[in-house]
């Protein structure tokens, strides 16, 4: 008898292998992500030449930008279109004839596709480390908790992406939904500009959303901008968002699946 996790692993492995089939994607992701990282480095180097701004100096910003590169590569490199296409082209009809939980299967696939970005991350981080020599984590414990935060980014990204993909059941289109999600994610995560540079009311809005956990949370823990209790609090919030989005998506799917209208063969 195959264990339930064997099925998850098989789905994740399939998604990973699908990404392997398109090797140029890795090069493109490295060029685009690495290019964006270099531009950020150049910009912040100029901006911070005169000293620290909003608590960030050039040292901490180098680490911050590399953390942003890691989360952006993992999150934006995942196969969200593959999930959306299943709904839009009616392939969900085939999925629903399989003895697996639709959400769990998609989660395994999505995380498999995210894992496929790890080589890009490793090469990018190694290159950035050699070029910019960023500071290490504030403490070994901060380093460990940062790693936990990175690990939580995987299911959190799935929850956020899947929930927005389910909107396709109503909109019948994905492009606009994806643009909106990516714009909000880029802005409120702190990937583009650290949240500390935003007015306090906008920071409050950001922290009421799941987005800051994609860059600000791991960066704050890594750089020691929060103490251990604060770091654990951020991780608890990240985990709570992960669970909330997971169960929220279940409720949305149960409504959405009643709207399945796959016409024709």
């Amino acid at each position: 008898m195959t264990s339930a996790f064997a099925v998850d692993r098989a789905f994740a492995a399939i998604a990973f292998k699908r990404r392997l089939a398109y090797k140029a994607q890795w090069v493109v992701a490295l060029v685009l992500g690495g290019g964006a990282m270099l531009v950020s480095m150049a910009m912040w180097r100029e901006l911070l030449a005169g000293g620290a701004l909003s608590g960030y100096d050039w040292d901490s910003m180098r680490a911050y930008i590399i953390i942003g590169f890691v989360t952006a590569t993992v999150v934006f490199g995942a196969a969200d279109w593959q999930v959306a296409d299943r709904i839009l082209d009616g392939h969900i009809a085939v999925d629903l004839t399989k003895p697996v939980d639709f959400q769990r299967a998609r989660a395994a696939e999505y995380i498999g596709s995210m894992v496929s970005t790890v080589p890009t991350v490793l090469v990018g981080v190694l290159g950035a480390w050699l070029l910019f020599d960023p500071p290490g984590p504030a403490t070994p414990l901060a380093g460990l908790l940062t790693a936990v935060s990175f690990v939580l980014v995987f299911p959190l990204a799935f929850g956020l992406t899947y929930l927005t993909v389910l909107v396709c059941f109503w909109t019948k289109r994905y492009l606009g939904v994806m643009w909106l999600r990516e714009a909000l994610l880029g802005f409120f995560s702190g990937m583009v500009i650290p949240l500390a540079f935003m007015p306090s009311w906008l920071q409050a809005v950001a922290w009421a959303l799941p987005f800051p956990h994609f860059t600000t949370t791991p960066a704050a823990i890594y750089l020691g901008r929060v103490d251990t209790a604060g770091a654990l609090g951020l991780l608890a919030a990240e985990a709570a968002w992960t669970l909330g989005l997971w169960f929220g998506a279940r409720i949305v799917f149960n409504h959405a699946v009643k709207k399945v209208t796959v016409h024709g063969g």
Partner: protein
Amino acid sequence: MPILEARSLTKTFRRPDKTSGFKGAVKHLVQRKYKNYTAVDGIDLSIEPGESVAYVGPNGAGKSTTVKLLTGILRPSEGTVRVMGRDPHTERIANAHDIGVLFGQRTQLWWDLPVEESLKLLKHMYGVSDADYKARIARFDELLDLGEFMPALARTLSLGQRMRADLACALIHAPKMVYLDEPTIGLDISVKDRLRAFLRELVDGGTTLLLTSHDLADIEEVCERIVVIDKGAVAYDGPIQQLKAHYITTKAVNLFLEGPADVDELKLKFPQYEWAAGEAPSEVTVTYESRHFTAAEVLGGLTAELAPRDLSLSEPSIEDVIRRLYAGELTK
């Protein structure tokens, strides 16, 4: 006890009601209107274990929608379905373990991976043991020549290969109930023949089969029972042989005579039959009531009198009957 039972099965969809043109598009943007469309209208269907049932109807009759209701993909608007005692929609995962589904127009292969990878994933999904997996793959290879394209990427397969691979995917877990929606669509005759032989063997092995197809040869060669639906409702449900016996009351013989055929003279000589000129001057077609005459009687009399150079007997076809059922000329 039936393996599948549907009672008053109904599915209504809501469709946008738009008038054509720019004005219609703008109007729909401001004031959205929808119309309800009944795709399946109160269907009753009961299938016993081991039965092979053809589910046929014209385009848009509701065949695929019915299959999606029976497999749990869609939730019925009204009515009930039970497959092996379960509601296939609310108990979807449990039901999916016992059914195999093939949609001819939708592949279940992972497009950018070798066929073997898709089958291995399905092996995990259904919890098929290594021994059973190997035995079934060997069997599929024997009957469907699967081995030749197992390592090929799904997107590089021909349509016939893709369909054979999809059939293996639908059957890898030896399901008790199999739904095949247009399994031979777009295939050439040799692949169709192989698929039909495979399906026949599947049915002979005791698998229950529901087949939708526009290809009547699929139906005649694979199924014993036929359900004809039109406009979402059942127009006929019974054995194929009974459909033929009930509605096909005439048979035809094509005769090729030595010289030109005189149809008027033949009508006078054999008034019990209907006569029509064929395409060639020496060709003539005689139609007779199969309830009143046997083929031996007809052929014996005609060959003795006319000494034809050649002849052919047209076997009864359900194609005309179904066409007439679709057209509403025949009733249950």
